[in-house]
């Protein structure tokens, strides 16, 4: 078990700066999620922690040991790839035991450990199959098994669920959370899916263009986003963000209000708008309003609200829930 500390970590590919100085501490046993838009450097940062990518500058500690220049296998980490990266020519058993067999451990010890790992992941009946003959979820579990058996101090995941369908994804989310609780290991998890970030993380690190935008617990980021970027990134549907005259009227440069923090009325309110589009999600309904000053407002109302297209309604921000940047 170990704490991961990054001090002023930088990475450039030639003249392209991808990671522009990151300071971060991931506490022992924490589930830390890196989120950010595509191309912001999440994978690169994770690969730098794994040692697959060298750092151009800065210092990195895992469990109080300086690993800035250490080999990946010396860092006490294990990584689960987005593509699973299972060895196609080996059975599940050999895939899971590959690391131990490389290290030249005795056969009996490997067999016992593989057996035990397979049990925790309910893979026992699949041990003699090749990866080709497994479903996506099963491959995912094998990849996780290969990570667990190394008994790492830190687990690294790079978008491990993005190849799965929605139902399986939510099931695997729960399994991963359980696994984290059971192993108590530090986990660093990369995703661009803010739902995964919100549901699994102890700590979310929002990255934007190679910099840390904000670090905090899911609810901290939701309630007190430090910048319009974070405000727009966390929460679904996205927060309404306005600049210019409207923001100036509110005494700030960017004014934000979440769709769920607007109360709706048919008779009176702060802004009057026409319903342009209705999305019925069942429990909720999301409305897209046309409004002369704000251009567009997104509002979230209860699912059973009786509304029609082109209807005019009024919306008012819930006091204390507005964000001014």
């Amino acid at each position: 078990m170990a704490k991961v500390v990054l001090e002023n970590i930088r990475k450039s590919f030639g003249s392209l700066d991808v990671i522009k100085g990151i300071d971060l501490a991931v506490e022992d046993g924490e589930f830390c999620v890196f989120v950010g838009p595509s191309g912001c450097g999440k994978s690169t940062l994770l690969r730098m922690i794994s040692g697959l990518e060298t750092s151009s500058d800065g210092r990195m500690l895992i469990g109080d040991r300086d690993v800035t220049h250490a080999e990946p296998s010396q860092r006490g980490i294990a990584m689960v790839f987005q593509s699973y990266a299972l060895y196609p020519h080996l059975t599940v058993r050999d895939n899971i035991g590959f690391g131990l067999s490389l290290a030249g451990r005795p056969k009996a010890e490997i067999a016992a450990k593989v057996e035990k790992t397979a049990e925790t992941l309910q893979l026992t009946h699949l041990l003699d199959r090749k990866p080709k003959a497994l479903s996506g979820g099963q491959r995912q579990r094998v990849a996780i098994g290969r990570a667990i058996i190394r008994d790492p101090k830190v687990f690294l995941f790079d978008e491990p669920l993005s190849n799965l369908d929605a139902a399986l994804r939510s099931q695997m989310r729960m399994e991963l959370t359980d696994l984290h609780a059971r192993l108590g290991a530090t986990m660093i998890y990369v995703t661009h899916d803010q739902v995964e970030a919100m549901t699994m993380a102890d700590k979310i690190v929002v990255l934007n263009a190679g910099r840390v935008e904000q670090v905090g617990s899911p609810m901290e980021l939701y309630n007190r986003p430090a910048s319009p970027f974070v405000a727009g990134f966390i929460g679904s549907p996205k927060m309404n963000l306005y600049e210019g005259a409207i923001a100036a009227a509110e005494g700030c440069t960017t004014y934000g209000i979440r769709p769920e923090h607007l109360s709706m009325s048919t008779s009176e309110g702060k802004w009057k708008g026409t319903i342009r589009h209705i999305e019925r999600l069942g429990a909720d309904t999301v409305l897209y309003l046309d409004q002369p000053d704000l251009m567009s407002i997104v509002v979230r109302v209860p699912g059973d609200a009786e509304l029609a297209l082109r209807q005019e309604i009024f919306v008012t921000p819930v006091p204390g829930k507005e964000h001014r940047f």
Partner: protein
Amino acid sequence: MTRRQFYTGVISLAVAGVIFILPFVFVLLTAVKTKQDAALLTFSWPVEWHFLDNLTEVLRTRNYMLLLAYFNSTVITVCSVTLLVLFGAMVGYVLQRRPSGWNKVIYAFVLAGLMIPPAVVPTIWILQSVGLFKTLTGMVFIQVAYGLAFSVLLFRSFIATIPRDLDEAAIIDGAKPWQIFFRVILPLLKPVTVTVIVVQSISIFNDFTNPLYYLPGRENVTVQLTLYNFQGQFQTQFNLLFMNILLVTIPPLIVFVFFNRQIVAGMTAGAVKG
């Protein structure tokens, strides 16, 4: 299948049959004829079947030279192909996976090896000066040198289809570079390795000119050279000459018949990703 497709199919099969099968049948028939019968060189059914007689006669010629030739050819083929697979895969792997300034230079040499025709006389000088002229070892090196460029290209394009994630997963599992190569990459190269083995072993086994230039000497004879050596002697014994041809053709033919599906699979596997 439409009628037209059917007829074009039949016609192309017939043409292929005439071009490829008929000569072989002719060789087969003449090889089992008697001396007089064969001398006529007609496409006719043998009057008497002398398969075993002719076979033993050819084998016995010049003190079992053909057996020695088989031995030499096999040694050369097996050693060269082993080295070709090993070096081809290794060089292909490094070229594909480790981008460095040297890659361009190495790649240029590989392409040059494919395009520039070998110069015989200087090669013989070099072989003589390092003492490998007229040795099987020297011949193996020559075959490896001539075949390496093709093998490297084939392996390289195949390795490009193996996801890099596998290498990285192995690195994280604690594999050293040679372990990544031998335990992860090499086993995945099976289809293209079969291709290289079959294509190269046939071409090396069938090679006539290179052994002729670089491997003179009675004790160094290879299978294809026996034909050349026996030619004078068998001038009047076409049945034996054709028996010799038959014996020389059969091993590569067997290899080809058994492996031709894998050859195509390995050749095209690198072409399209996925």
